[in-house]
């Protein structure tokens, strides 16, 4: 904004600047009003367009919502205090099967995290701008990792189920591929932030590329790696519970069948197991993250 030169007469100046202020303020208000109108107009147009494209129908929704609540209510069978143990026992009739599926789910998540972190961690050095041997390697590795993590793990699961058949094996592979992509990217970003001084020192002492990574980079990046890995376990447990929807093993398979067959009490029992597990894993992982590496080094 340019400020006018002061005029000779003070009174005129005051009147002039007051009027000027009024005028500018009105112009500002008008401009703001137009911007706001444009924004809200555009926004409402977007909402309407989205509503039409996605066939949003309030009546179907209103008809469906009571049924949803009905489903959710049916998921918890009647439990009375006098027959508490028996009721719970009946609700959890399939506890052995479900706990076995749960164990599978957890082990799938664990194995996929380990494999994905090892491979993704190794690749992350090639995908870090400052550590990659040359630009082509860096670029190609970045794109590969991007594809691995942009394709959702359930799509990988569909592909692997086609080749490996139904079972936990394709689920592990699907989550592994996704983990490689995610860890590769996150670790590469950590790698790019390392201080170059220790690396220079190792090079000066005659170390080769591998020595630089082992003694220069790893000690600097390990805390962040650990925190990302604990966090990845959390996310992978969630993934492992749903890849079963397409036949890739784990508790998701039991959940999918029970909902498809409208066995609501079963679905409720399994969902409760899933929620408790996920909350426990979240709590444990957070504890590990903080205790193993200290709060200071846990940064995003």
């Amino acid at each position: 904004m340019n400020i006018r030169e002061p005029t000779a007469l003070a009174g005129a100046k005051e009147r002039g600047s007051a009027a000027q202020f009024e005028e500018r303020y009105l112009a500002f208000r008008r401009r703001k009003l137009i911007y706001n109108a444009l924004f809200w107009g555009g926004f409402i147009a977007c909402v309407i367009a989205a509503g039409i494209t996605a066939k949003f129908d309030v009546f179907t929704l209103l008809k469906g919502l009571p049924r949803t609540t009905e489903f959710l209510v049916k998921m918890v069978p009647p439990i009375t205090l006098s027959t508490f143990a028996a009721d719970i026992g009946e609700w959890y009739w399939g506890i052995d099967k479900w706990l076995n599926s749960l164990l599978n789910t957890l082990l799938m998540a664990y194995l996929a995290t380990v494999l994905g972190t090892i491979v993704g961690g190794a690749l992350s050095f090639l995908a870090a701008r400052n550590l990659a041997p040359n630009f082509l390697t860096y670029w190609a590795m970045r794109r590969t990792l991007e594809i691995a993590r942009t394709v959702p793990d359930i799509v990988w699961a569909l592909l692997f189920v086609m080749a490996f058949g139904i079972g936990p094996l394709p689920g592990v592979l699907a989550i592994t591929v996704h983990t490689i992509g995610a860890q590769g990217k996150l670790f590469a970003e950590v790698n790019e932030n390392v201080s170059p001084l220790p690396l220079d020192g190792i090079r000066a002492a005659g170390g080769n590329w591998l020595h630089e990574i082992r003694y220069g980079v790893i000690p600097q990046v390990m805390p962040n790696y650990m925190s990302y890995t604990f966090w990845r376990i959390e996310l992978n447990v969630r993934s492992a519970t749903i890849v079963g929807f397409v036949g890739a093993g784990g508790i998701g398979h039991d959940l999918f069948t029970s909902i498809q067959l409208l066995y609501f009490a079963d679905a409720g029992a399994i969902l409760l197991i899933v929620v408790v597990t996920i909350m426990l894993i979240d709590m444990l992982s957070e504890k590990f993250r903080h205790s193993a590496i200290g709060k200071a080094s846990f940064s995003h």
Partner: protein
Amino acid sequence: MNVRLADLTDADIAAERELYPHVFGRPIAQRLKSWLGWGGGAALTLYCLYRFGFFSGDFLHGAGKFGQLVASQLFPPTGYENLPLFIKVIGETIAMAFLGTLLGALFAFPLSFLASKNITRLRPLQFGTRRFADLLRSFDYLIWALIFVRAIGLGPLAGIMAIAIVEIGTFVKLYSEAIENLDRKQIDGVTAAGGNWLHRIGFGVLPQVLPMMLSNTLYMFEHNVRSASILGIVGAGGIGFLLADRLRAYELQEACLIIILVILTVYAIDYLSKMLRERLIGDHARREPVDDAAQT
């Protein structure tokens, strides 16, 4: 003190080692503990590999089959005659993500004030709202989608509802964290000027938290485009339905085209949303909600 390295004898070093063992290496007990940790982890990994059949012939057979699928049946992508259909359904996917995020944000907005410690003085109400949000959030999109598909039928409406429900949970958490982090002074100022509860929210709270809320909402929209692209696998509308359909029918080349289109869409949306977010709140836009930064 002037000690030259060349003057040091082995005896000196041994004496020092005796005096300060922790400088020369970690104590045996600690080392043993970390070895046990790594060894246990490795053993568990081996057991898992065995349990899930990585050492069996099935694995080699499957790997061969997968290699063959990728090498000979996935490329090059075909089905360009269906491109208009694919693009239309991708539009539906984006619309689902948009409406789901919007609905979630609308419902979460009032709830987030209930869930904030500095706004809601009634502790059980605040705590209860938080836990309720956690509960909604702890089920994956696909689980909600599965339930809604059974309750309101196949189609994008089920997907919109699934996204909206999870997003209520996420937004209540993110919004209330933003509200709890706000600067008390502005609110005190409004109170001192005689403002009531509504004034405090309108002039003290909202101007501080709205940019953060908008940025979080945009970020989740970006994330939900990814989620919406798979909800169709359980019949909840969007491109996932076509993708699963083509894969199950072994029309891999067409599936490949769909996957490429989805990747391009995700990139475009990420780019747009990042641009908008940077405009909205400048430097803060680069700080993404913690829970989801790794999911991308």
